[in-house]
């Protein structure tokens, strides 16, 4: 993925998140658009970009939640770094593989994030991880791949 394409992708995700986040809910399931950005930063640009993207995206999310300021930054930095590290272990240009990576990243993200968030209420943690996180992970993957597909398609059309 070229730098330009990645920049467009990042901006689109950022704006979609800020503009339409409340309209993207599917019941009580919300997608994590910033996580998609972090995953693709790690996949296409390596661990530095992955961890930096994770840190800044997490910080942006944290700026809305004062109670655990830094928690999103921490988890997303870890995810971005890990994906950057293991990106050569699989064929990451395949759409299906990318979808699986997003789902796994979301699961790992929520496992770390909610372990701190629900540290006082283990019941809620299990409910979140077993019921809500898988749905949110699938939804995030579908949405992320959809946006990536649209951007690829648009760039292919404009470069003809």
């Amino acid at each position, binding site marked *: 993925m070229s730098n330009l394409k990645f920049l467009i992708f990042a901006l689109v995700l950022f704006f979609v998140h*800020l503009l339409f986040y409340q309209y993207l809910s599917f019941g009580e399931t919300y997608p994590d658009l910033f996580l998609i950005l972090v995953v693709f930063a790690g996949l296409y640009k390596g661990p530095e970009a992955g961890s930096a993207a994770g840190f800044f995206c997490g910080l942006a999310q944290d700026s809305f939640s004062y109670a655990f300021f*830094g928690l999103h930054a921490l988890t997303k930095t870890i995810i971005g770094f890990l994906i950057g590290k293991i990106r050569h272990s699989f064929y990451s240009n395949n759409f299906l593989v990318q979808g699986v990576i997003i789902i796994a990243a979301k699961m790992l993200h929520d496992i770390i994030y909610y372990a701190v968030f629900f540290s006082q209420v283990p019941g809620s943690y299990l409910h979140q991880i077993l019921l809500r996180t898988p749905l949110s992970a699938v939804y995030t993957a579908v949405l992320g791949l959809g946006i990536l597909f649209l951007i690829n398609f648009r760039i292919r059309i404009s470069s003809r």
Partner: protein
Amino acid sequence: MSKFFSFIWDHRQNLLFLLLVLISLSALSLSSHRRFYLARRVNRAILAPFQLVVARVDYFLQLKSENVKLRKSNFLLNLELYRLQEAKRQNQRLEALLEFSRRYPVRFIACRIISGGLGEKAHVFIIDKGFEDGLSPNLPVLVPEGLVGKTVEVDPHRTVVQLYSHPEFRVSAKPRGKEDRAIVGSSQNNKMYMFNIPLRNQLEPGDLIVSSGMGGIFPKGIPVGRIVGLEEEEEMRIKMRARMEPAVDLDKVSEVFVLADTAFIGPGDNLLFEATDSLTQLWERP
């Protein structure tokens, strides 16, 4: 020293990761007051530019949808305004008609125009009353401003009115207060003229021409029009004709009165008869 930088460069991925993790953990361990302060600063620094753009886009979208709503509402209000204006005009017309019929104890039949003929310039009106309502042929048709025409064909519930603009329409008329009687009618070019005026006459532009009462159809005193100018008749040059501006603008007429009072109507179709009474007072009283 170079070994130190070399080490940092070689391990930059891990070091950057560790640095960011450390910063995140430090942020997590801050006191709630500081966390709040930092969150606000971060929000302002990272998200403010995006939020500004988002707010602008949101504002634009809202403006657009508001514009659509306002256009729709404006259209509906215009329709309502038009309906109210039309009702007001109709009310004024009906008030004038009512006042006209109250002014003098004459039997008028109020009629609504249901068709204005098929020509470009209307020569006939069709009104919604017929002989079952008391109408018959050759009755004067009026509005408060003056003469409109006369009834010609009468059906049970419909009547054809021959208008003053019809090429065959003629009415004996004279200036109010003077005795220069002549015939008023419309030429082929739809202009109203007073024909057969003697060369020596007392007519002047601006004179109000009213029906003279001759002919047995139109009583005396119904306004027909005003003289605009005098000119010689082209054919013989021993008579004059006067160009006239009609008293009634037919385009603005939607209700009329038919004078069905036998006290004013001459006996039979004999056109030499004079109408038996005068309506002059109807237009002279305030």
